[in-house]
């Protein structure tokens, strides 16, 4: 009896009802809690129909092909939205077939639906099977798609049916997987006609430029060690003659270029050929209007030993007979340069020239190039993004369902990440703009907030900021606008990136972005300055210097005595900017440092900040007797600093340098003197005149 049942065909109407009810109960599982009456009723309804089906059969198997359900080898109505919905749901779980067995309970159905509700994302079939098995559903079994059965096929469908030797070779060659040496012997077996037939069947775009040469090279077994023969030349000729016209020219051109470099070999090959065959080759070259390389021309000339002067056309009157055709004297005259102008006037020639310049083809090419540019996926993605933005901005926004908006926002989120990775900041700005504008619509506020969350998430900010490294410097304005839009949210991530950045150029760029945030950046810098790493401290102090207010700047004091001079000097700069007296004493300390580098930096800073209080220290430095050339040159920064400070009290000291003499370190002293002259000219000349001090020193020391 059971056997009989299992053979009965299913009632289509009943089966349809079963799937519809099954799908309804599936949706209800996602909406209602386990014991909800609506869910119970729905499960019961589906269960009852299945019981009826089990009266006909012991098992009901639904196979799934994408969004189509197949039962007993027949496809159920492809257009039925319920079938498609159910099939798609199974398909998304990698399910190829599901079988319901007699004995299935409502509880099992419920668990099966729960299994279907889960978002499994990227999980292999094995994992899904494991999860499914753990449910211990005795009466429901699934067969999952076994992706391991798919293998790579490198041939097209036709080739797979019965590839010929020729097809195998040419495909390999076209794909570049065969090397000429390996395949030469195989290729030699292919008749020229067969090879030509194969190529005639290919579309031009399937044959790359380099393929022409590689086919010829392989076909004649041309290697650096081996010379080719006349027989191989003949084979090539046969092959070319059997090709379709446009291929003929390409292959002939490749043949000529390939062989022309082999002068001796070519001459020998031509000697092997009969005169008719050589003439045929030349005829082919003429027909196809293939340009002959100089080398080949020489070989052919030598080979043919043609004496141009020996050529005599048969004359008939003033005309010439060639191949039984009479060329009238006007025509033969036309060919004579001196008579050319009597047939073609200057103005006509001008017109021809202008026509040639106005190359229609060229203007078409420009259009076509522009069109081809727009076919690039990047271009289309931008257009898509603009379209989605336009929809969200449009007058119909109010009527868009929240679900639709969510979808569109999700699309923009994904695109934004891609645009960030590819430095398309203009697109990102548009997306950020639309987020701002649509958020006013209360109906979709939740969706917008959700997207905002993403755009302000560390994940997205990281993508964005790390892309600044590559594209930021070339799109400064757009990057600045993005930073402006994000405001202070951007500071911390930028500082994190700055900390790890190894390239000085990129560090400078990031610093320029951070300092654009003003006091907000200074605030964050004060937090980060506590970092133990000296370079972080230095960068933070730099930011503080650029953006901090007086109070913030004064907080740099604790770093003035940092062991690293770069940090210490940066801290002093902050204090000096804040006009904090502690800065001057710290600066003085550094000027007295035994570390030359620290001292020099401090002097420079003294000049930059025009710290008058340190003028006596600088003068003291100048007075110190120089014992070496370096010691003379070390005075240069002090001279510069005095110049920048512009204290007239330093003039006499500077002038005394101009009077100094040395026997051993003249070059160094001259450098120092030259610096003094410059300083005097740029910073003291006017003041000195006012003070009546111009006296004789200007003329005496050649200062104009």
């Amino acid at each position: 009896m059971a056997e009989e049942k299992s053979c009965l065909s299913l009632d289509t109407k009943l089966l349809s009802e079963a799937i519809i009810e099954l799908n309804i109960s599936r949706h209800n599982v996602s909406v209602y809690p386990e014991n909800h009456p609506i869910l119970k009723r729905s499960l019961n309804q589906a269960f009852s129909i299945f019981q009826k089906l089990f009266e006909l059969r012991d098992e009901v198997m639904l196979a799934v092909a994408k969004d189509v359900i197949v039962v007993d080898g027949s496809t159920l109505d492809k257009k039925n939205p319920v079938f498609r919905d159910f099939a798609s749901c199974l398909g998304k779980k990698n399910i190829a077939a599901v079988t319901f067995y007699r004995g299935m309970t409502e509880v099992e159905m419920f668990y099966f639906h729960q299994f279907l509700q889960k978002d499994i994302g990227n999980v292999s079939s094995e994992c899904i099977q494991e999860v499914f098995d753990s449910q211990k559903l005795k009466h429901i079994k699934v067969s999952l798609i076994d992706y391991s059965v798919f293998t790579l096929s490198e041939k097209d469908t036709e080739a797979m049916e019965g590839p010929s030797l020729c097809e195998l070779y040419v495909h390999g060659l076209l794909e570049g997987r065969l090397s000429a040496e390996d395949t030469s012997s195989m290729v030699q077996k292919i008749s020229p006609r067969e090879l030509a037939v194969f190529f005639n069947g290919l579309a031009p775009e399937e044959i790359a430029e380099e393929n022409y040469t590689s086919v010829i090279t392989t076909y004649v077994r041309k290697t650096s060690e081996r010379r080719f023969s006349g027989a191989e030349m003949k084979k090539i000729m046969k092959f070319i003659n059997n090709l379709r016209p446009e291929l003929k020219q390409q292959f002939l051109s490749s043949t000529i270029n390939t062989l022309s470099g082999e002068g001796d070999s070519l001459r020998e090959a031509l000697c092997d050929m009969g005169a008719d065959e050589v003439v045929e080759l030349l005829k082919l070259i003429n027909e196809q209007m293939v340009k002959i390389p100089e080398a080949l021309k020489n070989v052919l000339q030598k080979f043919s030993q043609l004496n141009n002067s020996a050529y005599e056309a048969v004359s008939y009157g003033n005309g010439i007979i060639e191949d039984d055709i009479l060329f009238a004297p006007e025509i033969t005259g036309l060919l004579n340069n001196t008579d050319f102008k009597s047939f073609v006037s200057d103005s006509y020639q001008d017109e021809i020239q202008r026509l040639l310049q106005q190359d229609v083809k060229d203007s078409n090419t420009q259009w076509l190039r522009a069109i081809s540019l727009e076919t690039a996926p990047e271009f289309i993605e931008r257009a898509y993004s603009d379209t989605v933005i336009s929809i969200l901005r449009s007058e119909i926004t109010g009527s868009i369902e929240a679900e639709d908006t969510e979808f569109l926002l999700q699309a923009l989120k994904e695109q934004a990440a891609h645009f960030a990775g590819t430095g398309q900041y203009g697109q990102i700005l548009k997306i950020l703009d639309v987020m701002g504008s649509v958020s006013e619509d209360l109906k979709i506020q939740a969706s917008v907030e959700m997207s905002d969350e993403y755009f302000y998430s560390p994940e997205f900010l990281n993508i964005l900021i790390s892309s600044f490294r590559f594209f930021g410097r070339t799109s400064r304005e757009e990057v600045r606008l993005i930073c402006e839009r994000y405001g202070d949210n951007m500071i911390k991530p930028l500082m994190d990136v700055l900390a790890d950045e190894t390239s000085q150029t990129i560090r400078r760029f990031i610093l320029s972005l951070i300092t654009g945030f003003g006091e907000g950046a200074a605030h964050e810098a004060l937090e980060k300055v506590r970092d133990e790493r000296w370079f972080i401290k230095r960068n933070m102090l730099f930011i503080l210097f650029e953006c901090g207010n007086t109070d913030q700047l004064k907080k740099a004091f604790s770093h003035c005595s940092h062991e690293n001079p770069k940090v210490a000097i940066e801290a002093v700069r902050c204090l000096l900017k804040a006009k904090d007296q502690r800065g001057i004493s710290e600066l003085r300390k550094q000027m007295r440092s035994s570390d030359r580098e620290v001292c020099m930096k401090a002097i420079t800073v003294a000049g930059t900040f025009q710290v008058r209080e340190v003028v006596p220290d600088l003068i003291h430095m100048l007075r110190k007797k120089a014992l070496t050339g370096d010691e003379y040159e070390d005075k240069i920064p002090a001279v510069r600093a005095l110049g920048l400070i512009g204290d007239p009290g330093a003039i006499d000291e500077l002038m005394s340098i101009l009077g100094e003499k040395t026997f051993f370190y003249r070059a160094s002293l001259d450098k120092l003197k030259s610096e003094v002259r410059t300083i005097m000219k740029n910073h003291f000349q006017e003041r000195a005149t006012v003070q009546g001090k111009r006296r004789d020193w200007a003329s005496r020391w050649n200062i104009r």
Partner: protein
Amino acid sequence: MEYPVKTETENKAEDISGFITALVIAISNYSLYSKEHESFGEFAGRCFSALQTIMQEKVEIMIFENELIVNRVPVRNGGLHINNLIARMRKKGVLRVEILQGVSHHEMTSFIMDMAQTGQKLKGYPNIMSGSVDFLVSSAPPEGYESNSVPAFVEEGVEKVRSAFGSGSVFRQVDIKGLEDVVMGFISVFRREASILKYLSPVKSFSEYTYTHATNVSLLSVLQAESLGIGQEFLYEIGLAALLHDAGKLFVPKEILEKQGKLESHEFEEIKKHPLYGARYLAKITSLPHIVPVIAFEHHIKYDGTGYPSPGRNDKKQHVYSQIVAIADFFDALRSRRPYRESMEIEEIFVLMKKCSGTDFNPFLIDNFINLIHSSLNK
């Protein structure tokens, strides 16, 4: 119900997503900038490192239906980058790529550059194998399609478009599969026939206009695209987009669409919303190429940026595919008989087209279109 495999699987999935993301961004960066650009080297490097993390004996990337399967695991949570890679592979005529363990950084970089080139097939690499499947050519002709009955097929196309759109219900999802068949049919028509005018389907009744018009516009768009040398891989997208360019009309009340007399201004305002409705509707259908909603949105925007919806919406011009469809749309609309006017003669339409060339339409495309129709008439 928890998935016990989550941690390990999730990690694996993340690694795969990371690889795909780096691969697609590297491809895009090469396409947008150059091999020398710092970003290309960086992302090619990231891609190569990510490849090592997912490398077993080999890495298998396969398109199965519309899903990307990497190492036998469907990658579903990859969003844009997954779709982007699928689209790129399809355009290269590749359904499967296998990257072997011995692959070098240089090889991978060359492969990325190769993937970025449009209109060229993938080259061969010692450690990267790709399956070449020419989708358009290998596709079997649609059911019931006989090679000698092209006009009959076009008529069938109208039927398919009608059925794909459903019976005017806006709640029904467009049947993309049916439309694919229609476009494939057109493309195969062009392979054998040059005179295309005879295949344009006449409108037999007012209610049939939307479907017939969609079919004709698709046919004329694919014809233009092919004549411009646009690669075969793009013809399908253009044809499909052209078929769906007026999908937004499903959302415009039938009374307005089929009104016999002149439209009131508020009715015209409603009509003008159809590009927006269409784009919104089509953008949600993930299986459609992204150009489809773009064309639905832009087909009434003019070459000079005016037109509707909202000129100046973005500082961007109409995409060239939209320009192609706009010309086909204009031609077929005027050529067809409508409730409120008779059809126009071809030469009359050409006069109008030339008048609007440079303002409403791309002048180069107009010249090309007129030449195409003329040469079709002469055959």
